[in-house]
């Protein structure tokens, strides 16, 4: 991928796919994702809390929540629902945000400049003999070509990431 002479250029699009089978009925797993009182109980790495969460479960509705690290660092996230099929599937955008629900650049939270501004989450819930298979697709919405000078950005990012993993 050696366009514009930069040997470090990445493919423009990336997607993460994770599946997990949960030993619970589909309606319950769907609720755990889409109702704040359930969502705050599991979302985020071990030791993190979710002190704020609103979910307006309808197309165009907004999901806005805050994750707090054990040290008190807060990360706000905002999403807009694109599609909802109860209890089978949800599709929503995912962006970093502030407490007022404004989208902010990922660099605001110390992420590298080539982190996508907006990602798209597709979560499907499939029944499997009384259990529920969850398939999560997390796709980047490409933010254009890579900028120069990202090496320093990576170093700052890995500093924070190393701290973050040490906490987890």
């Amino acid at each position: 991928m050696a366009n514009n002479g930069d040997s470090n250029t990445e493919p423009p699009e990336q997607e993460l796919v994770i599946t997990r089978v949960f030993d619970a009925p589909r309606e319950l797993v769907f609720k755990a994702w889409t109702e704040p009182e359930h969502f705050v109980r599991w979302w985020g790495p071990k030791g993190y809390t979710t002190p704020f969460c609103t979910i307006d479960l309808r197309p165009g509705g907004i999901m806005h929540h805050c994750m707090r690290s054990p040290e008190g660092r807060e990360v706000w996230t905002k999403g807009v629902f694109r599609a909802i099929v109860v209890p089978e599937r949800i599709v929503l955008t995912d962006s970093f945000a502030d407490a007022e629900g404004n989208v902010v650049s990922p660099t605001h939270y110390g992420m590298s400049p080539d982190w996508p501004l907006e990602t798209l989450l597709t979560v499907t819930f499939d029944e499997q003999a009384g259990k529920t298979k969850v398939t999560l697709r997390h796709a980047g919405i490409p933010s254009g070509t890579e900028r120069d000078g990202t090496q320093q950005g990576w170093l700052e990012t890995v500093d924070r990431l190393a701290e973050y993993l040490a906490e987890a």
Partner: protein
Amino acid sequence: MPTDTLDSTFAALADPTRRAILARLASGGEASVKELAEPFEMTLPAVSKHLKVLERAGLISRGREAQSRPCRLEASPLREVSDWVEQYRRFWEQSFDRLDDYLHELRRGENEDGEQW
């Protein structure tokens, strides 16, 4: 990317001296062990030890010149660490572990006292 590569990258990055060495190489190209040792109150063997950890993690490479063996930054492991997909993978795996625990908790509660979720 294999998890063990990621783990060795994190282990190498866990030390502030090694991060400072990487930052120095990121800003100024190649450097000898002696040049890298200058900002630290450390012996050359101590710095060499840090360089070995960084080299094993693939974060730096060293020239073949027997005496100075200049060090240079290898950015690709850092790139993989800062890659959003890899970070989100860790995030989701850990969240799913918690979701699994939470669902079990809910269902236990339901069985014990017939409470509805």
